[in-house]
């Protein structure tokens, strides 16, 4: 038994490695295929014009005329040592920039997920308990509403009202937790609309299963069944949902962070994109993918721990 599971873990690890390799390959391929390569960006950022000769010479210096595989292996050699090169925009070490900004993004993601769970778990379960009741219909409308709004629109409107009109928060995010409240609320609430529908479906399934019926027939109160037993059994699918939405949040954080001035990875990515900072964009894609894979792996593990029936 033990040997079998080690073999299975090994296989999983191997396929994860292959995927990570594929991910890095893809990100490197992206910048290799881009019309304006590193030499062009470097020369044009110096302000003065340049000739084709200068371009060719710079390309040679930067090693951009070598075959693709050679450049890729070279980049990978550095990546393995966690050296992603220097940003074109600020000339800082990219790894340092990432490590400094990542905690903020993670904090924001975590807070948003907390908000989402606190809002959507009770409401979702209640909607399932009274299907097609007034709460359910109102929530369905909300869900349609929020899923049609672009995230940056909500953020801008909230920014306008909360900071400018009502002066509740400052426009520039304050350090510490206070600066995270608004973006976490915005992200959390708009994600809740989707979560409520999902949790409703999950809870509905739970409510129609045998154990609920048998608990009720044994005299356990409705309230207790709902909030003690059903809630617990919903957690497993909910954790899978969390894994899926973390990916969306890691990506969508870019816009929210830049609007609310949170110094996270997303905001850095936005500046990198506007200044054609290729090494950073590459590193951003690679990091986010690696993070997402890690999160999904953790969700898998958690799922297996919570429900031993999954193999």
């Amino acid at each position, binding site marked *: 038994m033990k040997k079998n599971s080690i073999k299975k873990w090994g296989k999983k690890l191997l396929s994860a490695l292959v995927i990570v390799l594929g*991910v890095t390959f*893809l990100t490197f391929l*992206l910048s290799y295929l881009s019309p304006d390569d590193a030499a062009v960006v470097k020369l044009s950022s110096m302000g003065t014009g340049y000739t084709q000769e200068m371009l060719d010479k710079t390309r040679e210096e930067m090693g951009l005329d070598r075959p693709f595989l050679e450049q890729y292996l070279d980049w990978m050699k550095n990546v393995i040592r966690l050296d992603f090169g220097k940003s074109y925009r600020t000339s800082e070490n990219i790894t340092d920039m990432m490590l400094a900004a990542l905690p903020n993004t993670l904090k924001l993601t975590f807070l948003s997920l907390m908000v989402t769970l606190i809002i959507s778990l009770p409401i979702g379960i209640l909607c399932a308990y009274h299907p097609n009741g007034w709460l359910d219909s109102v929530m369905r409308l909300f869900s349609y509403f929020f899923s049609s709004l*672009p995230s*940056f629109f909500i953020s*801008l409107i909230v920014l306008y009202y909360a900071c400018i009109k009502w002066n509740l928060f400052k426009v520039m995010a304050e350090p510490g937790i206070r600066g995270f409240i608004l973006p976490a609320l915005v992200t959390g609430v708009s994600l809740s609309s989707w979560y409520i529908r999902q949790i409703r479906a999950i809870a509905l399934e739970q409510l129609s299963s045998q154990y609920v019926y048998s608990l009720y027939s044994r005299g356990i109160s409705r309230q207790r069944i709902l909030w003690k037993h059903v809630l617990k059994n919903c957690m497993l699918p909910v954790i899978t949902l969390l894994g899926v939405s973390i990916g969306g949040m890691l990506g969508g954080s870019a816009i929210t962070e830049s609007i609310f001035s949170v110094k996270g990875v997303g905001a850095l990515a936005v500046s990198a994109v506007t200044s054609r900072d290729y090494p950073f964009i590459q590193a951003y894609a690679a990091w986010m993918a690696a993070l997402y894979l890690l999160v999904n792996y953790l969700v898998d593990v958690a799922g297996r721990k919570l429900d031993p029936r999954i193999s």
Partner: protein
Amino acid sequence: MQNKKTKIAYFLSLAFLLVLLVFMLVAGFFLKHDPYATNLSDAFIPAGEEGYLLGTDQLGRCIACRIIAGGQQTIYSSMIVVAVVLAFGSIMGMLAGYSGGAIDSVITKITTVFQAFPGFVLAVAIAGILGPGKGNGMIALILVYWTTYARYSRSLVLNLKNNTFVRAARMCGAGRVSILIKYILPNMVPPLLVTAALDIGNVVLSMAGLSYLGLGGARPTAEWGAMMSESRRFLQTNPSLIVIPGIALFIMVFLFNICSDCARNYYDKRGSFHE
């Protein structure tokens, strides 16, 4: 009774959507002002005055005309993206599901690699590296969205492959390709189309997000996301510059979402196999 309500909801929402689309496409030929003509002396006119239906923006361009022009572009590019993604993704999925073996393995690995990236991250990375421009934005979104259809069509093919009527066809000597085209394909089309319809709304939102960041349709095109990011500076003084494109986006995506949801409910009842 349930069926009647679904029917009404479907046709009503479809009617609203078609009205919006036709309006956008036709009104584009009757624009009063050039959406790109700047006229600084006419900047910041409030809505309704001086013949500008929704006012002008910071460069004096008519907002209503820009909304309509942007709407046309948004509709065209989103439909193209969804069409390409549907075709390409489904073909890949069919190849993988029907052939099985090594081809399946390779295609699945490729889709997993693409799906390892959070969607928007990949779109931003691709569009960021390719540079701004509508075409690059579309390429980025195509590369992000195709995996959904590849996965979905693969699972549909796998489900249908073992159906009785397919096995009967094999027994009668039908070739593999003709089975694929005559039996499996027609049963895959409805669910794929419904997913595609639902995705149009998402694609529109993603395009807006990209153009907000300066990728995809960047300024001075009349893309709604770009209009919103250009007007960010004027959040305090002229919030309507941001609100109007936002509402336009909302209405379009809302109608698409409701319509495709109703369509899904409607076609679900009548889902039938072609034999």
